[in-house]
């Protein structure tokens, strides 16, 4: 599969297969095309050559969490979380109860009447997550969602995301810069080459299913990180 913007080839020669229920982290240096890849999977962009296929294909099965929370500032937290269902034509009561459930999942149910301007960065990102989950998606795509947050919040959200994945059984593709985050969260890590050169490393991570904060200082995590680090470092 290949993707080019005018003259700029962003992805070249990529072949990737992801099974249902996997938690895949995609790593790579800046400009390697990981955001573009994610957008193509979400069908927000088309590959120039090749194709992306999702089996079985269903409408509205994909959710996307962006780097910034990107909430609509003129809507309350509840209305923001409910937005996807609103766009899909779901009735008011139904979508509000789904939104409340989603907000509860990310521990935000008390804030439903507040406006984004009144929220901290971490809270906004949680609303964004709730918004992604409100449609019960089968596929969850995240593009460096926690990059702008402080470390403690990041750790907390990482844990929360991992739990959500475990309880719901969705497929997660998580793009990140951070090797430690990738290894903490994922079952499988894909490292992309610089400047759209394709896949450098595709590694199954040998780590326990249940992940908690203690894992962060576990030597097993360090071992996996070393493997990914060397893949990213070598030219």
């Amino acid at each position, binding site marked *: 599969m290949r993707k080019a913007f005018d003259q700029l080839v962003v992805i070249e020669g990529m072949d990737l297969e992801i099974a249902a229920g996997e938690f895949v982290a995609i790593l790579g240096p800046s400009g390697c095309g990981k955001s573009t890849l994610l957008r193509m999977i*979400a*069908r927000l962009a088309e590959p120039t050559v090749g194709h992306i296929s999702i089996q079985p294909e269903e409408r509205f099965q994909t959710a996307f969490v962006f780097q910034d929370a*990107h909430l609509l*500032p*003129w809507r309350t937290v509840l209305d923001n979380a409910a937005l*996807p269902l*609103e*766009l*899909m034509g779901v009735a008011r009561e139904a979508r509000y109860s789904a939104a409340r459930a989603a907000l509860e999942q990310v521990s935000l149910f008390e804030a439903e009447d507040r406006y984004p*301007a009144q929220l901290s960065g971490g809270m906004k990102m949680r609303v964004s997550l709730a918004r992604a989950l409100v449609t019960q998606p089968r596929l969850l795509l995240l593009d460096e969602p926690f990059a702008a947050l402080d470390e403690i919040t990041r750790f907390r959200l990482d844990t929360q995301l991992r739990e959500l994945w475990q309880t719901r059984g969705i497929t997660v593709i998580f793009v990140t810069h951070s090797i430690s985050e990738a290894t903490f969260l994922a079952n499988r890590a894909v490292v992309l080459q610089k400047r759209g050169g394709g896949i450098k490393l595709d590694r199954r991570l040998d780590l326990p299913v249940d992940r908690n904060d203690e894992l962060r200082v576990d030597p097993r995590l360090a071992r996996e990180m070393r493997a990914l680090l060397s893949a990213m470092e070598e030219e």
Partner: protein
Amino acid sequence: MRRLRSAIPALIPLVVVTAAAELAVRYGLVKSYLVPAPSSVLRAMIESRVELLGALLTTSTSALVGFLLSTVAGIAIAVFLSSSRAIQRAFYPYAVFFQTVPIIAIAPLLVIWFGYGMRTVVASAFVVSIFPVIANTLSGILSTEPALRDLFRLYGASTPVTLWKLRFPAALPQILTGLRVASGLAVIGAIVGEFIGGQGLGSVVDVARTQQRVDKVFAAVLLASVLGLALFGLINLVSYVTLRRWHQSEQA
């Protein structure tokens, strides 16, 4: 109470200038037939208050109607222009025409089309004030964040839905900026239209000028400024009410 206190710094220059002007005219430093003493302007205002009030009402109505028309038409045109690059390239230059045409030159044409009366004045206010609405609305609609547009696409939102639920609310701060500019221009356009079409404050200024009543000219001009300020304040109020909970321009 705090709001009143915060208005004081703005009032000080006004008081100083008014006092200085009054003294300057009284002591002959400035000729009274060039710059009227503020006291004589006040006197003219009181003397001609019935005429001035009626004129103010007329001009206010014309300016307001013209402004509302340019708000509605301006936003509609901007929405139309935002629908495609090709349409923008084809039609936007003509919108710019509204900005550049000197109203003094086309006002006589307006009289021929709309006759002597309020219709010409409204048309004049409309022509002068519509462009900032178009330009600012278009800019606001086009500068919606791509990520948010992606979000709407992801959930299958059609173009009209995206326009109504995303691009328009997102553009609201900029639309209001355009309206702020347009409000003052609508008053100017109305006054110019009245020079040519005859009625309202513009007519008072014109007639007083030929009578060499500078004090009355200033009185009418002052009222026109008050009108402009009032319209501006109205937009600010609308902005406060609609934006206060979510836009940084109305917060803190």
